[in-house]
């Protein structure tokens, strides 16, 4: 192929809040077509990492390079969708917004696109919910609807932040099947997860994070007892009096 497949390179990336790092000096590559789990203890910087990729959080240091892909082509499902569930809109309309790249701010939904929305809703098992208000969905149904929207986004890179939190096993396994379908379509999928058995069973690659990178690579090589133990040790508490990092350069946000 003439151009590289989309991938993401972390070059000495530090991400954090109020100068305290949540992800510290990360060097890693998210290779194209991998199904990567991001694993680590609470506070290890997993969600922060995804926010850095999607650009809502700017690195305190280093660079996150998106190769062969624009930021708005990456699909992202945040942990607790910032969704206003009381907003008066139907499930169909919410899901249809996954077609944004095709319809933009102005174009109407053609017949063909309407069919695609119905297909996506069928794929997540929400047929019949089209005219329900989003506020009437249960947590699991909402997650299904959000996955339908992701389906329509048709993105080469998909970021999922704890997609199976607080949903039943049936829904989780349905959604996992979708994730594996994406993997089969050679999309790059990155998911923050807590269920280590699930990671071992289904994910090709793992990035083990404990603020510092503990290990990254094929899941079997990363998920060793030794690495997991080190991850737990590394994740010390947020230190109010922390000194300036010896590896830090610069100090201004405005560049």
């Amino acid at each position, binding site marked *: 192929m003439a151009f590289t497949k989309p991938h993401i390179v972390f070059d000495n990336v530090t991400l954090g809040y109020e100068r305290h790092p949540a992800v510290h000096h990360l060097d890693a590559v998210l290779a194209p077509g991998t199904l990567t789990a991001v694993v680590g203890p609470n506070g290890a910087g997993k969600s922060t990492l995804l926010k850095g990729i999607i650009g809502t959080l700017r690195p305190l240091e280093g660079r996150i390079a998106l190769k062969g892909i624009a930021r*708005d082509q990456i*699909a992202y499902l945040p942990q607790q*969708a*910032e*969704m206003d569930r009381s*907003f*008066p809109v139907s499930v169909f309309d919410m899901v249809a917004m996954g077609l*944004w790249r095709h319809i*933009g701010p*102005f174009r109407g939904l053609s017949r063909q696109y309407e069919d695609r929305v119905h297909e996506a809703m069928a794929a997540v098992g929400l047929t019949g919910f089209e005219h329900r208000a989003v506020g009437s969905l249960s947590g699991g149904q909402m997650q299904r609807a959000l996955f339908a929207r992701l389906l329509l986004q048709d993105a080469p890179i998909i970021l999922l932040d704890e997609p199976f939190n607080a949903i039943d096993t049936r829904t989780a396994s349905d959604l996992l099947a979708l994730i594996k379908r994406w993997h089969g379509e050679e999309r790059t999928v990155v998911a923050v997860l807590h269920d280590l058995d699930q990671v071992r069973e289904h994910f090709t690659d793992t990035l083990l994070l404990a603020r510092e990178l503990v290990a990254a690579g094929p899941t079997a090589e990363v998920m060793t007892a030794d690495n997991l133990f080190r991850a737990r040790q590394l994740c010390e508490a947020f230190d109010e009096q922390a000194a300036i990092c010896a590896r830090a350069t610069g100090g201004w946000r405005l560049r």
Partner: protein
Amino acid sequence: MLDGLFGPFIEFGFMRRALVGCLALSVGATPVGVFLMLRRMSLTGDAMAHAILPGAAIGYLVAGLSLGAMTVGGIIAGLTVALLSGFVTRATILREDASLAAFYLVSLALGVLIVSTRGSNVDLLHVLFGTVLALDNAALYLMAGIATVTLGALALLFRPLVMECLDPAFLRSVSRTSSLAHYAFLTLAVLNLVGGFHALGTLMAVGIMILPAAAARFWAREIFGLLVAAVLIAVLSSVAGLLLSYYYNLPSGPAIILTAGIFYGLSLIVGREGSLLAHYWPGRHLEA
């Protein structure tokens, strides 16, 4: 009966002008109010309305009761406070409600101070509560113009605005229209508040935006129906309020807003969606 409804508008020019002005507000400002409500910015609207006062007052100071000067002053002041409070919210620890409250309290005090150093109490009342029965041609053109611009802009921005309310993180991830939509919307809100202030005054202008929107929320399940219902309620309140003020010799601005308040109260009690009635008397439950 018909004569009672139409008579005052047929007989008196000032009633017709008042009606035209209020209809322009109902069509333009009320949809903006719906979005203010859905974005949980009802109080932001109130704060911006107060913030308009010192701008209008400086315009008044420079040029007397001149429509142009007070309008331009009001728009500048309203936008300044909206942008500054947004900036303070993003760059400091203060939440939006607190920073808005701080800005609008200062501007309200400043505005009252400026008007009263130069003008009479009558002028102050004019600015605070409007003069819907004394709208001149220029004011009507301004209000109709603002309504036209607003409807056009809302039509263009409709999808980004809805998405910004529904799921802002998602809109930001697929498109850069997010901040454009936000600032365009703030501008529309200020424009409509300034238009509304000529008729209803800075303190009441928000009423015709928020009350019909809040009342309509109890009747509609989807955003489009919500907009239509809100505009209808605003139109009804304008007509009924003007007639009440005519027959019972009441001040018109408060009469209109109170009528809208009555619609709100009724909707709150018997509305179809999530009203008190639905809460306390939901009916017998269904099979599935």
